[in-house]
């Protein structure tokens, strides 16, 4: 049920200190690529808001997104549920089933009409009147239309919900589409990835709680703070690309020395995501660090964009390889690449921070 108590009041009642909230906000600010001054703004925003109702629907999906998201560490999803949100419906996590669960779903939607956040993982099959995904005699498409009507905003979690994903792969027998393909009158943030990075979801949730709106998005509806640069620009192997040092197979000397995986099909140069910086498993590693090229899973229709092991240049080395191949020039180029990557990242950070600052001043 909606509560009139603010989160600040609730946290104080539970003995959560200002420093604890500020620490949490710091973790979120860094996750959202915001400067430290915004940590205080996030903490203030969280303190003033009320517990947010979240209704989570799973459509045509594999549950990999939820598996990933329950492993978020900064903050973990349990912390969010415990302190900041009311997860009113999530089929896999909730104890209720059958008609009891359905009643809970529609009761939560009625209680929080116009204010709930609708989170969706999985694509929507629209072929043949949506018969390829039914729950309780109702198609996913019908359920989406009904529940999106009174939602404050929608988060499309994973590449399937964002762009159709694997179910949409040719020949797309179910007519799978992304949420934004069928819902046009609501704010929608896409958080693609197969699976998505858990900290991105929690960061977007905290953004929404703190400032009452979705973060700034790129042309594919993705939060700019996380998808503003390519994997390539953030990759620790980037200097080797600029030096023309490429692994030719997964077990050659170049691979063992950590050289660039471009020629082995890495899609990092055209893939926007935060894997290279946030990484996975609490910052442990990401695919390229584990020796495999990026598959480009956060880009629309990545499954149908050619072979995972075919390089972006069609199998040839990048044209500037020879120019950068001289060993003597390599070190300087590597340093320049690192500077450039920092500059690109900083440029995105500044843009995001500026927009948040304007929002903060507008709220003041």
């Amino acid at each position, binding site marked *: 049920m909606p509560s009139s108590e603010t989160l600040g009041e609730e946290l104080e009642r539970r003995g959560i200190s200002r420093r604890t909230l500020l620490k949490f906000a710091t973790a979120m600010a860094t996750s959202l*690529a915001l400067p*430290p*001054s915004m940590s205080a703004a996030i903490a203030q925003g969280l303190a003033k808001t009320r517990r947010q109702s979240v209704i989570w629907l799973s459509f045509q999906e594999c549950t990999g997104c939820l598996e990933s998201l329950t492993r978020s560490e900064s903050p973990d999803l349990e912390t969010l549920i415990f302190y900041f949100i009311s997860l009113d419906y999530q089929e896999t996590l909730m104890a209720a089933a059958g008609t009891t669960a359905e009643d809970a779903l529609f009761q939560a939607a009625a209680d929080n009409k116009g204010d709930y956040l609708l989170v969706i993982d999985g694509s929507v099959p629209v072929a043949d009147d949506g018969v390829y995904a039914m729950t309780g005699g109702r198609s996913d498409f019908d359920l989406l239309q009904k529940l999106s009507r009174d939602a404050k905003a929608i988060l499309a979690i994973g590449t399937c919900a964002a762009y159709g994903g694997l179910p949409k792969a040719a020949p797309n027998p179910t007519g799978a589409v992304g949420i934004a393909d069928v819902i046009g009158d609501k704010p929608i943030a896409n958080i693609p990835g197969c699976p998505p990075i858990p900290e991105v979801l929690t960061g977007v949730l905290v953004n929404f709680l703190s400032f009452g709106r979705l973060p700034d998005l790129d042309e594919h509806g993705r939060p700019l703070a996380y998808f503003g640069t390519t994997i390539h620009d953030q990759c*620790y192997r980037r200097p080797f690309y600029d030096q023309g040092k490429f692994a030719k197979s997964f077990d050659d000397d170049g691979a063992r020395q*950590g050289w660039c995986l471009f020629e082995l099909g890495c899609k990092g140069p055209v893939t926007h995501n935060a894997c290279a910086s946030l990484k996975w498993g609490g910052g442990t590693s990401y695919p390229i660090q584990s020796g495999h090229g990026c598959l480009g899973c956060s880009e629309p229709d990545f499954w149908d964009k050619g072979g995972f092991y075919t390089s972006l240049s069609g199998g040839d080395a990048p044209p500037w390889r020879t120019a950068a191949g001289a060993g003597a020039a390599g070190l300087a180029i590597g340093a320049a690449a690192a500077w450039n990557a920092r500059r690109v990242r900083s440029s995105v950070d500044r843009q995001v921070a500026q927009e948040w600052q304007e929002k903060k001043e507008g709220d003041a």
Partner: protein
Amino acid sequence: MADFMETSPSENGIVAALMGELGALLEKFLETGVRDSIDLHRIPLTDQDLLELEQQLGTGEITISFDALGESRITETAHAGLWRVEHRNPSGDLIAHLVEVGDVPSIVSAGRSEMRAAAAAMTNDHSSSGGPANA
């Protein structure tokens, strides 16, 4: 461990880039008083890069630690005005890893509202007991 970890940090230039950026932020703080920080979680650093960065930052005189739903540790670096800030969750996982630029890390200062509440409580204790409250 993969062999790429054997790559010389100086070869990728990231640590040099970071130190240059930190120097620029320190100059900005001296000129404008505006705090800033670099989030090491957001930067693609290998273990060797981190090690080299730690070595270049060095260690200063002050270490501050506190427990706020997990341990936090703030260490002054050998460069005045640069602070190494590590926040952990209750499981001990690192959730924020910053180099903060400023005279004192912002989280250390006591909050105004909490100080007001403390002052009010102390005043009440003093008036109700007829003397200074016990610590």
